[in-house]
């Protein structure tokens, strides 16, 4: 033990400073460090690039349609595709004004006087309403059921055979292609009730099938993160398991559960395949769960099928609207979760 005040030969400040400095790091290590840093930055750009490009593209193409008030208030023009393809003359015959005849200027310029003087109004209200209805219906079906299922798996079933079986089936269900869900609901619902069966509710059923496994697994993961001592503290006060779950476990996991459910909602809102079998088609707004309806995703699909510049523009507009709706839902849910999260 060195108790004297003299500094040992090999421990002078200069020497220690040199040992601790960056210069002491070997060239090889510095090169590897720099290479890895660059590689990570490139990987990030590669991952973020398509996202940014996609968003920029969608917004620039879709904004003209969306910024028009008609978009939110008017029915979908029934034969916009055919009219557009048939050329200007026929467009005018059909009641399309001069401005509407030029596809590029239609959405952005015919806002003020469009619907009143017989010009075509590029409306999307039926699909916006339909999207809200189907997603709302699917959420109402899948979220409570999914959360209850997750509570069973994590709080009651734990590792027993039934719980393991459900867990396995949920995983299988996650992997089922969405079109299969559509066919499933088509066969058990639409075929049974005929044209009457095509409705927002049928679409909700199909989307709920899609959402359920996502809700179950994400909620279960979140419940698993709640520390056991909290459950024990509650149990030690003479609390039944279900009251512990409602009073402590679920609130503690709430922000995560909300995120998981949102993921499911966003997924459902964007699904097309299960929708087109089950929802039918309308061009006027239908506020009910019964009767045929349409959604933004279905509109993107069918407008592109129609072809033509106007229809393409409507598809872009529907895409922007869809992204916007999911974004708004996300923000609302985040806010709610933060507001009610336990701290």
């Amino acid at each position, binding site marked *: 033990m060195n108790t004297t005040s003299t500094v040992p030969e090999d421990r002078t400040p200069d020497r220690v400073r040199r040992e601790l400095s960056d210069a002491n790091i070997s060239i090889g290590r510095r090169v590897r460090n720099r290479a890895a840093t660059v590689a990570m930055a490139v990987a990030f750009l590669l991952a973020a690039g398509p996202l940014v490009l996609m968003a920029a593209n969608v917004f620039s193409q879709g904004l003209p349609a969306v910024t028009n008030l008609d978009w939110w208030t008017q029915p979908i023009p029934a034969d916009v595709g055919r009219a557009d393809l048939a050329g200007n003359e026929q467009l005018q015959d059909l009641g399309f004004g001069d401005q509407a005849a030029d596809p590029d200027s239609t959405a952005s310029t015919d806002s003020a006087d469009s619907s009143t003087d017989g010009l075509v109004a590029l409306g999307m209200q039926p699909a916006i309403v339909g999207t809200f209805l189907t997603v709302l219906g699917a959420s109402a079906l899948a979220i409570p059921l999914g959360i209850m299922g997750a509570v069973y798996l994590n709080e009651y079933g*734990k*590792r027993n055979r039934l719980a393991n079986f459900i867990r396995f089936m949920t995983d299988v269900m996650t992997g089922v292609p969405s079109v299969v869900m559509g066919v499933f609901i088509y066969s058990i619902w639409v075929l049974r009730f005929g044209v009457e069966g095509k409705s927002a509710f049928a679409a909700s059923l199909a989307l709920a099938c899609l959402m359920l496994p996502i809700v179950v697994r994400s909620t279960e993961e979140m419940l698993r993160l709640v*520390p056991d*001592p*909290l*459950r*024990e*503290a*509650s*149990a*030690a*006060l*003479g*609390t*039944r398991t279900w*009251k512990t779950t409602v*009073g*402590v476990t679920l*609130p*503690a996991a709430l922000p995560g559960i909300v995120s998981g459910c949102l993921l499911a909602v966003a997924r459902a809102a964007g699904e097309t395949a299960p929708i087109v079998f089950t929802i039918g088609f309308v061009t006027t707004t239908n506020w009910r769960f019964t009767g045929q309806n349409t959604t933004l995703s279905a509109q993107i699909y069918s407008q592109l099928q129609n072809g033509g510049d106007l229809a393409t523009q409507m598809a872009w507009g529907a895409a922007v609207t869809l992204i916007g709706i999911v974004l708004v839902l996300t923000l609302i849910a985040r806010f709610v979760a933060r507001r009610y999260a*336990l*701290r």
Partner: protein
Amino acid sequence: MSTDAVVTPEGLVPTGGLPGAGSVSVAPAPAPDLHEPLAAASVIAEPELAPVVFDVSDLSVFYGDYRAVRDVSMRIRRNEITGFIGPSGCGKTTVLRCFNRMNDLIEGARVQGRLDYHGVDLYAPDVNAVEVRRRIGMVFQKPNPFPKSIYDNVAYGPRIAGTKKRSELDDIVERSLQRAALWDEVKDRLKSSALGMSGGQQQRLCIARAIAVDPEVILMDEPCSALDPIATARIEDLMKEIKTDYTIVIVTHNMQQAARVSDATAFFSTEVNPDSDVRTGLLVEFDRTATIFSNPHDQRTENYITGRFG
């Protein structure tokens, strides 16, 4: 019934069947003057012993096929502090968690033997674990307040038990926090999060939370192990103060703590089966605290409390 002990009308009498265990435990007989002759002899000033709350005989705890603890027999008395001491992994906590059936929550845990609470077998089929826990509260090793406000933490138990009226809850919260010596520190921020408190405050909050449901017994599982000496001293003072109203059982790693606060002490140890390398916890000695620390009857107890580990 284990072959290591026989039950006689006087109670459980160890027969010394354990390797090296001359006296496994002090087995009190029903008549008060014969109850704990060793204690009576060594502690002259010992007043008449309080009524028995828990009567444990020949308790073993299993996790699956593994027997974690065996041969626990003791009597825990009202308004006393009973300390469990012993090295890590000897089953103190496991035994403690039998007293309010917390082990039920662990998969595969099961109990053999008898654990009577006022003469009722806690593990009888018609006994409801939730009702047991309502009467026998628990404070855990790590402070585990709910992620709620201070007020809601304390009010949680009474609310579950059905107290709805705001004024009543206010009373209970204030009384419990005062009893836990926390009121003055938090009375101005009852609505703020319990997670913003210091560790010592959190643990006292957990005690207040346990007190709020007015239990008869409070089980404490190393309540001070995560706390500094000052917070520890406060909790020890608190325990001594509230034992007039409650029966307390405390697990502690700290022998001094057991010596300071407890009236009776149980010393647990482990035994390794040389063939299978399986460790089993067992109760070595149970007696009045003064006896355990000044005049233990088992060599292993003496080795432990004098710092020579057996």
